């Protein structure tokens, strides 16, 4: 497309509304209006210039702030929907059975819960449509910014000090009037503006005072930060960037760490502590009386090991790395991984102690201890007596079809079939032993009697590795820089020019905070004779002045 040549001689890109250099209006529309849109300096923005092809249409759609705000409002309101009922993630349902979830929502929240489930709102932040909304938000930010920042940058760079009067007249703040001594006014104004830290340029009876132009780039910098953040979130889909695993580990156990190949963790001890009234500060006394026990600490004392180089996987050849107490808010960190204290179980049965007794005399032939997680096949009691463990049901759940069954491998309710070998019965006598009950196939002379039980705690840990965290953090920092840059510094420009004879013109523009801009002009007026100006958009100052003059 052809360039537009302005009367001042400058060649402007196709689509320019106000000449980049002198500010003359170039379109009929701009020539006819009393005030021009200065937001992007009347520069040639793609979205305002090309409107034909399908690509133009898509570009224009995403570059519109109306659309952008609509997307923001859509994300905001749908997000709110997801907080009405708890999300899937927080619902205490085991496994991934959809019906279990449906049941849960229906049981607690009735028909509403059912609808909520069926609409997919119970897991809405992972839904395809929510992701598309976020995608559109990102696209909109990128396109809207590109559409504006490049032309804006170019025209601010090319602007000249002396503007054409037609440009001045079309500013929101404008005034013209003859003054007594225009040259003296210019000199005084220049000094006053410099005192207010304006960057002042002069050219042939004209002043351009400019301040904080760099604040104009704030929105683009903060949008870049947002995009970096969103990219970081996208990257967690890539393999190796993100690990999220959980593990249960009992006291005394050593296990491989899921998601962190080559590393092993030993759980030395898990403890829960509560504040007790004697030792806690006296100030907490009232709260403890009222609320009962308050937990002060959840802690897993662990040891971290690493398999030696060249050792076979699963071999015992490990190297001790460190010992660490994992508490809430203080994860164990190593090699990019973090291990968090997330959950716990106390009092899981670990060992049971039994005695072999003669039923009649109640004389003991010895005691033995079964490790409930790794039971031995045989326990030798000496003097010709021993116990064979024929069957073991860790989580005994009654008899089905004549056979005892176990619900799970967790020793919640252990049951055993023992074969008791004694000098009298070298072949052994069989006995079924469960908590609170003993069954015999035929009357026995001996019995296995429960003596005591040991229990232990288990820690629920989460293992995370997240290489994207630094990208996210970078996005956050860039956003903060941009948002501060754009919010705490406002770009202000004041133009002062001599006109015909003793006429003077003053015009001003800012991207925000017009009130403060006008205060600046008024300050200049204290020492330099300038024309009175009007703010074309201020409808009530006139009314205010009637009631009491403005500040």
């Amino acid at each position: 497309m052809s360039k537009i040549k302005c009367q001042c001689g400058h060649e402007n890109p196709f689509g320019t509304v106000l000449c980049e250099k002198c500010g003359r209006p170039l379109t009929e529309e701009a020539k006819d209006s009393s005030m021009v849109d200065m937001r992007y300096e009347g520069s040639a923005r793609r979205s305002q210039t090309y409107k034909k092809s399908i690509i133009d249409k898509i570009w224009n759609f995403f570059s519109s702030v109306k659309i952008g705000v609509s997307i923001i409002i859509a994300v905001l309101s749908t997000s709110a929907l997801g907080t009405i009922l708890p999300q899937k993630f927080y619902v205490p349902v085991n496994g991934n059975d959809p019906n279990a979830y449906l049941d849960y929502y229906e049981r607690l929240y009735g028909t509403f819960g059912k609808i909520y489930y069926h609409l997919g709102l119970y897991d809405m932040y992972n839904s395809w449509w929510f992701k598309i909304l976020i995608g559109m938000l990102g696209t909109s930010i990128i396109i809207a910014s590109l559409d504006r920042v490049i032309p804006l940058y170019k025209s601010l760079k090319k602007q000249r000090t002396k503007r054409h009067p037609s440009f001045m007249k079309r500013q929101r703040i404008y005034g013209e009037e003859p003054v007594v001594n225009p040259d003296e006014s210019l000199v005084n104004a220049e000094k006053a503006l410099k005192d207010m830290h304006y960057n002042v340029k002069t050219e042939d009876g004209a002043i351009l005072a400019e301040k904080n132009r760099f604040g104009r780039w704030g929105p683009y910098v903060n949008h870049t930060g947002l995009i970096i953040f969103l990219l970081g979130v996208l990257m967690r889909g890539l393999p190796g960037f993100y690990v999220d695993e959980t593990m249960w580990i009992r006291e005394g156990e050593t296990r491989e760490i899921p998601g962190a190949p080559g590393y092993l963790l030993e759980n030395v001890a898990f403890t829960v502590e509560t504040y007790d009234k004697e030792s806690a500060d006296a100030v907490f006394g009232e709260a403890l009386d009222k609320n009962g026990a308050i937990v002060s600490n959840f802690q897993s004392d662990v040891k971290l090991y690493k398999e030696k180089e060249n050792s076979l996987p699963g071999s015992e050849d490990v190297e001790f790395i460190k010992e660490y107490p994992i508490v809430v808010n203080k994860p164990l960190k190593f090699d990019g991984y973090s291990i968090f204290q997330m959950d716990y179980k106390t009092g899981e049965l670990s060992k049971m102690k039994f005695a072999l007794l003669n039923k009649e005399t109640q004389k003991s032939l010895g005691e033995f201890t079964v490790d409930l997680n790794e039971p031995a096949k045989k326990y030798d009691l000496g003097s010709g007596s021993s116990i064979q463990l024929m069957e073991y049901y860790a989580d005994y759940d009654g008899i089905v079809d004549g056979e005892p069954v176990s619900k799970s491998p967790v020793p919640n309710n252990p049951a055993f079939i023992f074969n008791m070998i004694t000098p009298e019965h070298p072949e052994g006598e069989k006995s079924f032993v469960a908590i609170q009950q003993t069954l015999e196939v035929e009357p026995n002379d001996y019995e296995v009697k429960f003596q005591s039980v040991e229990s232990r705690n288990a820690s629920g840990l989460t293992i995370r590795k997240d290489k994207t965290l630094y990208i996210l953090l970078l996005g956050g920092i860039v956003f903060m820089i941009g948002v501060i840059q754009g919010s705490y510094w406002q770009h202000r420009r004041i133009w002062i020019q001599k006109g015909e004879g003793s006429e003077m013109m003053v015009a001003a523009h800012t991207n925000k905070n017009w009130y403060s801009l006008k205060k600046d002009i008024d300050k200049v007026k204290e020492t330099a004779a300038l024309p009175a100006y009007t703010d074309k958009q201020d409808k009530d100052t006139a009314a205010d002045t009637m009631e009491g003059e403005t500040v």
Partner: protein
Amino acid sequence: MDYASLSANLLFVSFIAYLAGTFFFGGAVKSSKTEKSYKDSMWGKIGIVITIIGFVSQLGYFITRWMASGHAPVSNMFEFTTAFSMMLVGAFILIFFIYKTPSLGLFALPIAIVIIAYASMFPREITPLIPALKSYWLTVHVITAAIGESILAISAVAGLIFLAKNIDLTKKSKERFWLEAVMFTIVLVLGFVVSSTAFSLSGYEADFNYIDKNEQPAKITYNYPPLFGMHDYEQVTTDTMKPWFEMPSIVNAKTLTTFVWSVASGIVLYLLLRLIFRRPIAALLQPFAKKANSQLMDEIGYRSVLIGFPVFTLGALIFAMIWAQEAWSRFWGWDPKEVWALITWLFYAAFLHLRLSQGWEGKKSAWLAVAGFVIIMFNLIAVNLIIAGLHSYA
């Protein structure tokens, strides 16, 4: 005197100072004809000095309570809400020194007073920290977020003044209705304060056993006459009233009871005020707003969003994510509290875009600022009390 009781006394001093400050700012507005003259009025100067004394005293409350408990006093409803009111006054003082307008104080201080009164209705004893709250990042996050919210709240105060001045209250209109609705909401909060104080002075208590959401037996004590009973409740105290309705297990009938009592007392209070003054509450305030300069209020409203938005982003999103990453191993989990912080943030982002490129200034902007404050308060009150978050193991 130990720190804990010193702290309580300092809070009381600041409460009184804010009352006195309001009175002087009222005097400043009333005694002068124009914004320019009241800027320098003696009343206004005394008003700001008293406000600063109150603020310093409240800061003293904050610091001594911190010393007494060993952790930043932002760990429960009472502490957080009180801290919020302190920062609101701080934000007002900051804006006052930029723009020197007593009208803002006349409206901001009463809001701070109502918030302190509201906060005092929650348990005030110092509680020890549960493990999830023991984090340096949590302290940084909560304090920064509260500062951000309080600066954003100033924009709502300016917005209210703008609206009270510019809405024609002599004619029936949607605007008039909504402005009065905002006033009514404030009266409802007072209703809560009045009824809660009355029942707690009378020492009212009703104990119940009930079956909770996870089908476990539980106990609860009501401080209001129980209108609604918990799921499968059994009355323990015999001389108290019998609940009218039994609620399903997902509804906290105690919260509902408190809510209904507060609304009822708020309505009574509102009707009384209407009977006494024979005018809408907004009309009572209008004369005080009349002298404010609309342009100035509009600018303050925008400026405080501009100042508050970055602070809010830093505190409520960035620091929150860092803390969540340390405590829960994920920086973001779509927990209701997090989502509402995001909603607040998106709302103010929309506000800025509408203002910047759609030219939403004046009334539109003022309404948005008021709506933003409603969202902040919703987050503070409803999300904490009604929508139960995951902060359970926490």
